[in-house]
């Protein structure tokens, strides 16, 4: 495996993960929340690829492919719901959907 130690790869994945998480917390627009969600999922995928590389094991990449498909499915359903939200409330602001509370 190249000289790059695994820790750095995992570090990058962790940073990406945290950025994605913050993205979900900060952005009010539902679409950008989905984007942040994608970032988080791919961060996990990256971590798997790095780990797979470290152990010279194909499972890492198999898991990455699974995560990709999962992410795709989630976003698909997510966009469908976002579309519904836009059609119903005229905005994509996540906080518009606040009727369920208390």
């Amino acid at each position: 495996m190249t000289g790059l130690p695994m820790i750095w790869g995992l570090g990058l994945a962790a940073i990406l993960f945290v950025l994605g998480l913050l993205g979900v917390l900060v952005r009010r627009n539902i679409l950008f929340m989905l984007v942040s969600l994608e970032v988080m999922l791919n961060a996990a995928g990256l971590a798997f690829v790095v780990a797979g590389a470290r152990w010279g094991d194909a499972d890492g990449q198999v898991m990455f492919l699974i995560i990709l498909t999962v992410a795709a499915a989630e976003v698909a359903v997510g966009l469908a719901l976002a579309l519904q939200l836009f059609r119903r409330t005229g905005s994509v602001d996540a906080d518009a959907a606040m009727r369920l509370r208390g």
Partner: protein
Amino acid sequence: MVFEDFLALAPLLVLAVAIVIGLLVAALPGSDRMMAGLTPLALVLALASLPMAAETAPRLVTPLLLVDGYALVFSGLILVAALLVAVLSRAAFAGRPGRPPRLQEFDLLLLLAVLGALVLTGATHMISFVIGLELLSIPLLALIAYPRDEPLPLEAGLKYLVIAGVSSATLFFGLALIYAATGTMDFAAIARTPTAHPAFVVAGLVLVLVAGGFKLSLIPFHMWAPDVYQGAPAPVTAFVGTVSKAAVFALLFRLFEATGALASPAPLWSLSAIAFASMIGGNLLALLQQNVKRLLAYSSIAHFGYLMVPLLAGGTFGAEAGLAYLAGYSVTLIGALAVVGLLRPDASGREAERWSDYQGLFRRRPWLAGLFALMLLSLAGIPLTLGFIAKLYAFAAGIDGAAWLLLAGLIAGSTIGLFYYLRLALALFAPAGAVAGPADAMPADATGLTLPARGLLAALAVALVGLGLWPQPLIGLVREAGTLAATEPPALSRPDPTEARSWTE
């Protein structure tokens, strides 16, 4: 993959075939009625195939799935719950006025989710864990937001999507850390492989615990539950409350049992803290709750707080206690939500979730109110109901694992729980004078319920009181779950890493 492997996977295969047939049938006209027959049939067949699979148990089918007594009994519970939900959904949606919604997709999504749940019960490998979990939660998204023409399900779906997405990402990252540290994805192997980065494994397990906490709606990851329970239609809420949580519990129990995660302090302390917070917080949140579905959501938070006691106790008794508790709780929750779903308080076809819908219900719908009261008593754990047997196991597990603090939480939580369960139950019997809504708005005749609906309610009542009085059949079945197969997975050929230091120090 010899014949025995296929036999072991019989329930999964039956469902898969049913799903494919469903997809094909969906195109034909009149497919709604066909699907109405196909779904329950598929579930019943899967149930029937369980004993066949039992012969070959315990059996490691591909490194991903371990079909043992534990997995089969859990599958049984999930299939029964799914069957009840399927029948309930048909009856509940039939009651809606306006043009009947297309239920084929509903059934398909349901079967897909059940398939994912079954995979989870047998999973002993990260990949089967991930596939099972996602196969369970993504159809759920669509199920929650199924009634497209109403705002609340949409909002619930959105919230569930975002939170589920975050928790799935957390889960994957956690698994990645464990994989990075140990190099193996097999649960049993994780414990045995020495690793250079023990901190990663602990962190990974904690992240898995967080994802599990979300799925089981434990405090502080619980906030989605009340909104989703209220927003989603009653049958879907029942599904979320029973099938998805049961599958995740089964997985978590096996994961923690195999990896011995609860031996190290971090997961143990965080799980105990979460459990205690859920027991007390869940009950407190429900104290003066006016919306019945939200009340059931908070009560489920509390109940899964109680369920952590068997998880922490671990061992064969822990598995048995956990399963018994889940069985008791599932039947009770589906029963309660059946009444919520089937009771049409007024012409608008909305579900009966307001407090006023239940005020003095006993005078107008004695049987329905009686059943609802029975469910509430079971949730409170009053003897002669199945809920009491569940409480027996929770207490027993608490004492077996000598978790005194959690036992105290269990007692305090149940006492608080008594308050709002009985407050609602007493409201049912309130004299007519005190009732808020006009009595005649309610379709007075009980014939409003279709035949399957009444059959479903009767079955639930019989199960609740029957098993409450004579729990031996359930207990015998549950006893088998305890036989958590400790069979060693075949040693995977893999170069052993240089440093040999077990991560558990």
